[in-house]
């Protein structure tokens, strides 16, 4: 009797050990550039240390597509995915399905930027750990600007003029494929980011203000959208209305654009060996509208969150903490030119030497403008979709900026009803 009991205990503990050892973490992540290949490298130390394995499940790079899929999985209580890579704007919408990391992260939260930790805290629960932050840059071709004696533009008007000048000159010289400025004009979350920058840098507010009021229908915002619409077909190809990040980078990295608006990930890739613009470009903060206005960069960034439905929660939390750790953030900075969320890494000597954009980006990121995900709460996606639709309509010539923003204001007012919830 005793023997069988002992045997049984032994077997159970053995099973527990093997199951702990054999835990496999399924991690979903959207892919841009080399991110997925680099991730395989990044997770190796954690796999070696804990004996667990990580399966990386790649997703489309469009954050709108990713969100739709994650939403579906989480609503269905899917236990196949343990750890999600989440966009900075998702926390309020997904919070109910995610594990509270406050306790696990108690020792390290202090080293991260407080504003980012705050953005991932919903009703006192820390639902995701930041792994990198994002603020876009204006990429410009140093060789072409020097050739035409132009300086780096600080206002949108300067950018328009310089882009036109270089584009006309290069085309006359036989480069028929060159374009002045490429950006993200497809109707998706990325257009909300681009357009928020135009509007904010024209002094047109940020769609929905932190107090919940709807500010989008104003003269400055109308001027900002009219200007952007004037680029389509002149300094930007008409196809820009279907571009996301990767399409814009495709045109840029083959040497066919003078300026590009994109996130820092394109910096490292642009300096890769297969890039036609290697060593021929630099980055600057996005332009402003001139006197009395300031440059605006939309705050992006990614986090890792543990699903409430994960059967391996302990391992999953350990993995999430590993992904947010200083060592990994440094590695990502060097590999993918991702901006760290840990303050001390901005003074890191290796990063400063290899990816000089990062220390320079601290200021840009500290002044970045958040999308209205906090005031709009559960309705953020609908707010964003209404906004990007109004912008996309304006850019493609369906209605004027004034008409579309007036309609947008009415739609947002309907959506808000008695108050955002």
């Amino acid at each position: 009797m005793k023997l069988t009991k002992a045997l049984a205990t032994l077997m159970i503990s053995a099973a527990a050990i093997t199951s702990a050892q054999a835990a496999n973490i399924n991690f979903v992540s959207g892919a841009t550039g080399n991110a997925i290949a680099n991730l395989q490298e990044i997770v190796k130390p954690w796999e070696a240390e804990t004996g667990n394995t990580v399966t990386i499940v790649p997703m489309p790079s469009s954050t709108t597509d990713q969100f739709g899929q994650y939403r579906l999985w989480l609503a269905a209580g899917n236990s196949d995915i343990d750890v999600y890579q989440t966009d900075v704007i998702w926390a309020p919408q997904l919070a109910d399905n995610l594990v509270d990391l406050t306790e696990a992260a108690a020792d390290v939260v202090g080293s991260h930027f407080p504003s980012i930790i705050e953005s991932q805290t919903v009703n006192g629960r820390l639902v995701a750990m930041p792994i990198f932050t994002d603020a876009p840059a204006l990429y410009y071709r140093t060789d072409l600007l020097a050739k035409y004696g132009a300086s780096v533009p600080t206002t949108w008007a300067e950018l328009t003029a310089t882009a036109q000048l270089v584009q006309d000159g290069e085309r006359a010289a036989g480069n028929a494929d060159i374009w002045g400025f490429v950006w993200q004009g497809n109707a998706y979350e990325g257009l909300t980011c681009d357009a928020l920058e135009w509007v904010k840098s024209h002094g047109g507010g940020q769609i929905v203000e932190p107090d919940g009021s709807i500010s989008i229908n104003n003269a400055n915002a109308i001027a900002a959208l009219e200007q952007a619409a004037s680029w389509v077909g002149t300094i930007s190809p008409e196809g820009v209305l279907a571009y996301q990040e990767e399409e814009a980078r495709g045109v840029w990295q083959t040497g066919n654009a003078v300026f590009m608006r994109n996130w820092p990930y394109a910096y490292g890739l642009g300096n890769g060996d297969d890039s036609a613009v290697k060593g021929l470009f630099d980055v600057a903060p996005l332009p402003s509208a001139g006197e009395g206005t300031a440059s605006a960069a939309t705050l992006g960034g990614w986090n890792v969150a543990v699903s409430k439905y994960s059967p391996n929660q302990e391992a999953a939390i350990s993995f999430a903490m590993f992904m947010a750790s200083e060592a990994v953030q440094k590695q990502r900075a060097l590999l993918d030119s991702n901006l760290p969320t840990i303050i001390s890494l901005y003074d890191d000597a290796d990063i400063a030497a290899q990816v000089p954009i990062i220390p320079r980006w601290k200021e840009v990121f500290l002044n970045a403008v958040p999308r209205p995900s906090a005031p709009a709460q559960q309705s953020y996606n609908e707010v964003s979709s209404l906004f990007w639709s109004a912008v996309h309509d304006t850019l493609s010539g369906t209605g004027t900026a004034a008409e579309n923003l007036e309609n947008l204001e009415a739609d947002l007012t309907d959506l808000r009803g008695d108050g955002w919830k």
Partner: protein
Amino acid sequence: MSATTQISAAPRAGKPATSELQRQRVRAAMWFLLPMIMALFVAAGWPLFRTIYFSFTNTSLNDLYGGDWVWFKNYLSVRELPSGRLRWSGTLADPKWWNAVWNTVKFSAVSVTIEAILGLMVALVLNAEFKGRGLVRAAILIPWAIPTIVSAKMWGWMLNDQFGMINDMLLNVGLIEQRIAWTANPDTAMLAVLVVDVWKTTPFMALLCLAGLQMIPRDIYEATKIDGVHPVKVFFKITLPLVRPALMVAIIFRMLDALRIFDLIYVLTPNSSATKTMSIISRENMFDFSNFAYGSAQSTLLFLMIAIFVVLYIWLGKVDLGGKEKN
């Protein structure tokens, strides 16, 4: 087989008292049908019922079991504003919904018409005797065999404004003066979707038409040859009437597919209001905006529209889906 004929024969006879053997056969047939009925209920009936149920609640994706019954609020409701103005809300008062309905109808009508005509033409060619016919028949099916997502992505690249080969070819031939952003421009987005859909589904139509063509007895054609009837007359007086039953069934299949078009548009022109269809907009509401109930109401309306269409089509076109004429 004999059991089912017995069932349909029994009521026609009009005699409630049939032989014990016959009743036994009917009972046996019921037992054989039961698994199929169960499978249909689980796979089609239950989800349909749930969707209709959700459409009368205010369920959100965050809490699928916490919705309250709200009657027709998701379909149509009216509220008097403090100013005295009446405000209509709900799907039936939503301009985005009617835009999607119009897009779907436009897409279905144009794509199915073109596919039916092209499919019949291809089938006529394949029905003729020529060398290598087997190979051509197999080759023509390739577009149908490629998964829609893959072909949509492939066409997305081919239609790209900067490095797409279609723009390159048209430029070289001199048909266009500058590259056109086919999928981005609202004027050409629907055209791009139609071209890809026609490319993809014409083989399917051709295959169904070919099956119909091969049912036509050869001797009719031999007789027309002897009488010296003009080939065009042969087509309109003999081939078309005889292939009509097969063609009508092919069109109904395609129409059902076209009315619920989703994958091609979702990949090729996502979020373009020029191509958003009923399925696209209902998915968007259900998952992107977590208005699960509102999206369910739109799905239910889509289901109703397809059901009404099928009933009208079968009734007006006297389509013989059950093959009764032959009995």
